[in-house]
């Protein structure tokens, strides 16, 4: 179980005064203090953890965010930033003594510029909302996390979100040009702009993926790209994980970089097929979804090449989509994977390690052994091109033993990812979920170097406290008083 820091008694004692202060700043709009109305904010996508916050504030302008942060800073009140609350790592989990700043009311698209290929959007615009705003003109916003219908760009900034298409188009960090960032002191910083390279230090780069530790992004300038002429998917099914992995290597070695290259193991294929009826081969041990883009002739040529490569690995079946509808059906199963697993198990933990792709057969074998050892089922979905592995560990949250086992299983998987040369999280973030595993990947010196950067932005450690960085052993404290800071 994850330990949360002790609430600050002086803040809890001033609960009413804090509520008063927030209402004054917000002119009585968008301040939630009533227990029943606070309830929806007590958890996020990591729903096994719940904690009611001190209050929720729903600002509508950058200036309000600045005023609220300034107030919290002056009063020593902790702050938890929140987008749509879809974090699978508990990134938006409240603290008892913290004010949650929910960004959902800042949902305006401020500017779209096709000539210079950027869009300026507020933090509460959904990921898919950006693409929806520009797709009629042939453009799109590239990063496409599975939660893209709900998740907000502000949260994508926090977690440096990826998706199935980042092998070609990169992750959030590669697609952001500018951020309006409000610091804990209420200063509004303009980082980057509408141009590609920024002079001096790469503040955009350190802010993207910082999980709300450095400030709150209120307005984001993203690159928008012209969509390709078309895309098409194919399925390739194999009778073993090794041979499917070798096929992935052979595709990359041929010089073809598919726009997406997804791998599913047998349990994942079965769960998704039962859910989506996508025509997945149920006799396969492993399946690849491969997507290419370009004109119809280009798609035909690329898929022909890939088919030839796949044929060298004794596939059980190869199916090239003949239409946009067939491609959509192929993707429907994959994109619905989480829901599909949710149908066959009351609860699941979605892990998110990354591994060198060459270690996939070994890692899947070891995960299979752990599944037997813990007595819990697991389905594996893998962004094969970039090594990002999502084991879905199935358990029953009403059974404390089952939940405890699932967490231990997940931690073992992530230790394995680090052991084979990978990392704890490829796109979901550390949050509270993986916080205590950080020392598996980093030395104390390395963690301290990161903490000092955090301290440079947030000296009192009020922003998203108790996430990302392990608490000091034994103290359950996460404040600067517990941390040896920069000299």
């Amino acid at each position, binding site marked *: 179980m994850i330990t949360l820091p002790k609430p600050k008694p002086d803040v809890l004692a001033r609960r009413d005064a804090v509520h008063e202060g927030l209402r004054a700043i917000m002119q009585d709009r968008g301040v939630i203090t009533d227990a029943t109305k606070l309830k929806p904010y007590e958890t996020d996508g990591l729903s096994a953890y719940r904690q009611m916050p001190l209050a929720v504030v729903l600002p509508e302008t950058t200036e309000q965010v600045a005023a609220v942060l300034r107030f919290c800073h002056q009063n020593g009140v902790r702050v938890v930033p929140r987008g749509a609350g879809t974090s699978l790592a508990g990134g938006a989990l409240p603290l008892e003594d913290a004010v949650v700043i929910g960004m959902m009311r800042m949902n305006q698209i401020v500017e779209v510029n096709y000539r210079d290929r950027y869009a300026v959007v507020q933090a509460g615009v959904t990921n898919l909302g950006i693409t929806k705003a520009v797709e009629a003109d042939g453009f799109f916003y590239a990063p496409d996390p599975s939660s893209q219908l709900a998740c907000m760009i502000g949260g994508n900034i926090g977690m440096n979100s990826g998706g199935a298409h980042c092998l070609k188009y990169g992750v959030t960090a590669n697609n952001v040009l500018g951020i309006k960032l409000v610091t804990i002191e209420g200063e509004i910083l303009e980082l980057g702009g509408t141009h590609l390279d920024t002079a001096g230090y790469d503040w955009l780069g350190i802010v993207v993926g910082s999980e709300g530790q450095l400030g709150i992004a209120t307005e984001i300038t993203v690159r928008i790209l012209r969509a390709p002429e078309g895309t098409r998917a194919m399925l390739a099914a194999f009778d073993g994980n090794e041979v499917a992995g070798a096929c992935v290597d052979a595709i990359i070695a041929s010089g073809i970089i598919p726009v997406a290259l997804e791998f599913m193991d047998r349990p994942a294929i079965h769960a998704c097929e039962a859910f989506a009826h996508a025509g997945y081969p149920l006799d396969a041990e492993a399946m690849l979804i491969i997507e290419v883009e370009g004109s119809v002739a*280009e798609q035909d040529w690329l898929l022909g090449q890939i088919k030839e490569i796949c044929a060298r690995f004794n596939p059980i079946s190869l199916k090239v989509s003949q239409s946009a509808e067939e491609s959509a059906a192929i993707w429907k199963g994959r994109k619905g994977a989480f829901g599909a697993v949710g149908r066959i198990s009351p609860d699941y933990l979605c892990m998110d390690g990354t591994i060198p792709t060459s270690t996939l057969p070994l890692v899947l074998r070891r995960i299979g052994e752990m599944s037997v050892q813990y007595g819990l089922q697991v389905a594996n979905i893998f962004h094969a091109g970039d*090594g990002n592995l999502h084991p879905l560990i199935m358990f029953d949250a009403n059974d404390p033993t089952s939940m405890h086992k699932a967490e231990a299983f997940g931690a073992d998987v992530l230790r394995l990812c680090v052991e084979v040369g990978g*990392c704890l999280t490829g796109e979901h973030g550390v949050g509270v979920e993986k916080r205590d595993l950080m020392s598996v990947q980093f030395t104390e010196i390395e963690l301290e170097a990161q903490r000092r950067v955090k301290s440079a932005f947030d000296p009192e450690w009020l922003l998203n406290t108790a996430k990302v960085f392990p608490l000091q052993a034994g103290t359950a404290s996460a404040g600067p008083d517990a941390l040896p800071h920069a000299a």
Partner: protein
Amino acid sequence: MIAPDDEAGFAAAINAAVADRAPLSIEGLGSKAGFLREMQTAETLSTRNHAGISLYAPQELIISARTGTTLAALEAKLAEGGQHLIAEPPHYAFLDAADQTIGGVVAANLSGPRRVAWGAMRDHLMGMRAVTGRGEVVRSGGRVLKNVTGLDLCKLFAGSYGTLGVMTEVTLKVLPKPQATGTVVLYGLTPEVASRALAVALGSPFSVSGAAFLPQEAAMAVGYERAITIARIEDFADSVTYRVGQLGALWAKFGAVETLETAQSVALWRAVRDAEPLPIQPGDAVWRVSVRPSRGAAVLGAGHGAGLFGYLDWGGGLAFLTGPATMAAHEVVVGAARRAKGDWWLLRAPPELRRSVDAVPHEAPALAAIRQRVVASFDPAGILNPGRLFAA
């Protein structure tokens, strides 16, 4: 010069410098010694003896090298695997050494024409090891393509010009080298019309991987008689043929188009990458200006009015300018960049100018305060390339 051949050697040199309060110049081969602000340092710490490729996994699109590895050696290794560096790092014609180290290229975050479509060096830095100004070894990222574990110190170090630590190893994402390259050329356009044509190309569905405008004097330096507006396609041969044709049709409204085949294209884009079109005279300064693409023509125009010459890459979003290294010229560049809401670098200049002006724009006070704290957290004694980027 201290030039260790292992990480412990860098830590020892830095610890000694901290103890002596003796600032260090951090460099690879010194090719960018004339870049940005001038420094007063007691000693030089070079990565030049810390070379070698430590990991190359072509099927995982990953290469790791010690930072003293030369760009030429790294590119040769990648060529064996049919791959290349995605950001196409430049080898500027005005460098002070015949080659550069990969550490220097990453530390300066210098990218070539492909940056407009495929990202900068900082985007492909997947992992690094560095010795900080505390003499401590810090790793960030790793050897995998997707990694959001902890704060991304790789991004902070890329482009930090050696002011936070000495990177000892970098891991980069790489991609297959395209089978063919094609270029569509328009002749004789004004900067404003050229910039519209480049926007059409980059806004097309044909995956343009280079988009530049060379005014007449720049075009003449690379063998063309009139101004050229150029767009590049890199891919499999049949795709290149098809897309060059499509792009040519889109561009027909701007004038007669010509197309270049692979060999000519590769040579032309290498020249654009390396700033060869700049008519640099001895003692001249070189500025680099990053703006939104539609503002590039105005930057070029402002420079021209003050006797500066240059050209545009990145669809108009990157302007190179060169001319007399005077305060007046510098002010013109700074003013043009500011009006375009962009950023500028005094990339290279004689010592007199480098001593008297900023090399990059000042941050707002709140950000400058954060920057000072961040830099001090890595280099509390202020001994790593002090003043290289900012005076204070």
